C-alpha cells in the first residue's frame, strides 16, 4: 500500500480546474485554502518576470539611455519615479475593487488582499513623492510646490495611511475591514484628480509619458527601458502582494483544519485527511 493511495485530498485542496471558464475558477479561488495552495505556483513566474524586467530596465535606463538634452542625467530618476507613481494609483484601484468585493459580496479573501496591498501602495506613493522631490531640485529649482499634482499625491499618501490605521483601530476585525473598505471607495475620487491634475491646472509637472492615443514624446531608447521598469514594478507589486496575502491568509485561518494539517508536526492526527507523505511542505515557500 502506498502512502498516497489512502489519502484522498480534501475538496478544498483541489486546484486543477474541473470546469472551464473564468467565473468558476474565480469562485474556487475565493476560498482561502484553495487560493493558498494554488498561488504558490504563481510566485516563481511573477518573481522571474519582476527580476528580468527590473534588471534589464535598470541597466538600460541608467547606462544606455541617452542623457536628456535639457535635464542631462537627472532625467534618469524617471525610471523609478514613474513606475512607483503608476503603481501607487493601480494599488489604490485594487483596494477599491477589493472593498467592493468585500462589502457587497462578503468575499473575505478580497479583504485579505486589501490588507496585504495597502502598505505596498503607501510605500509606492512615498517613493514617488521622494523621487519626485529629489528630481525637482535640479530641474525646477525646488523640492516642493503646492501644485495640484503634488498635493493630490500627498493626499493619496494620507488616504493610504488612513486605510491602514482605520483597519486596525476597531475592536472587531470586521468593523475595521468595513471602515477601511469604505475609505478606499471614497478615496477613489482622488484618482481622477491625480490623473488629470496636470491637464486641468497649470503646473510645473510634465504631462503623462505614456498615453493610449499618442506615441511617447521621447526616443525609443528612452521609453523602452521605462516600459520595462513599469512592467517590472507591476510584477514586483504582484509578487509582494501575493506573498503578503498568503501570510494574511495563514494568520486569519490559523485555527482552521487545513492550516493545522499544513503546519502540524504530526499531520497524521486526523487519519485520511493528510498523510505525512502527502502533506504540503512550506519550507522554502515564500
Amino acid at each position: 500500500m502506498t502512502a498516497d493511495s489512502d489519502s484522498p485530498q480534501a475538496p478544498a485542496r483541489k486546484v486543477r480546474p474541473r470546469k472551464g471558464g473564468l467565473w468558476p475558477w474565480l469562485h474556487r479561488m475565493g476560498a482561502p485554502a484553495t487560493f493558498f495552495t494554488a498561488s504558490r505556483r504563481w510566485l516563481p513566474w511573477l518573481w522571474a518576470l519582476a527580476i528580468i524586467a527590473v534588471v534589464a530596465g535598470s541597466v538600460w535606463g541608467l547606462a544606455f539611455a541617452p542623457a536628456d538634452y535639457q535635464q542631462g542625467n537627472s532625467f534618469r530618476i524617471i525610471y523609478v519615479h514613474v513606475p512607483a507613481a503608476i503603481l501607487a494609483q493601480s494599488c489604490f484601484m485594487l483596494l477599491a475593487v477589493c472593498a467592493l468585493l468585500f462589502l457587497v459580496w462578503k468575499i473575505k479573501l478580497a479583504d485579505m488582499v486589501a490588507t496585504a496591498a495597502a502598505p505596498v501602495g503607501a510605500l509606492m506613493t512615498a517613493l514617488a513623492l521622494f523621487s519626485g522631490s529629489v528630481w525637482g531640485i535640479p530641474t525646477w529649482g525646488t523640492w516642493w510646490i503646492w501644485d495640484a499634482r503634488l498635493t493630490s499625491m500627498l493626499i493619496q499618501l494620507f488616504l493610504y495611511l488612513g486605510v491602514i490605521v482605520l483597519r486596525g483601530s476597531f475592536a472587531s476585525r470586521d468593523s475595521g475591514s468595513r471602515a477601511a473598505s469604505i475609505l478606499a471607495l471614497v478615496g477613489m475620487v482622488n484618482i481622477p484628480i491625480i490623473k488629470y491634475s496636470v491637464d486641468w491646472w497649470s503646473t510645473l509637472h510634465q504631462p503623462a509619458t505614456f498615453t493610449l492615443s499618442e506615441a511617447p514624446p521621447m526616443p525609443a531608447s528612452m521609453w523602452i527601458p521605462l516600459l520595462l521598469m513599469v512592467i517590472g514594478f507591476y510584477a514586483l507589486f504582484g509578487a509582494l502582494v501575493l506573498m503578503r496575502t498568503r501570510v494574511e491568509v495563514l494568520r486569519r485561518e490559523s485555527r482552521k483544519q487545513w492550516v493545522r494539517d499544513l503546519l502540524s508536526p504530526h499531520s497524521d492526527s486526523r487519519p485520511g485527511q493528510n498523510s505525512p507523505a502527502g502533506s504540503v511542505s512550506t519550507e522554502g515557500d515564500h
Partner: protein
Amino acid sequence: MSLPDVAFSSVSEFFAMGGHALYVWSAWGLTATCLAGLVIATRLSRRAVEADIRRRLRRESARS
C-alpha cells in the same frame, strides 16, 4: 533597432551622472532599499506567523 550606445565614456563618469549623482543615486537607492526591505520584512512575518501557529499546535498536542 540596434542596441543603443553606452551613454557614458567611463565608470567614474557613470557614477558622477553629469553632476547629478546626488539626485539620481538617492532616488534609485532609496527605492531599491525600501522595496528590498519590504520583501525581507514580508518573509520574516511569514516565518513569525508559521512559528506562532506551530507553537500553538505543539502546546495543544502536549495538553491532550
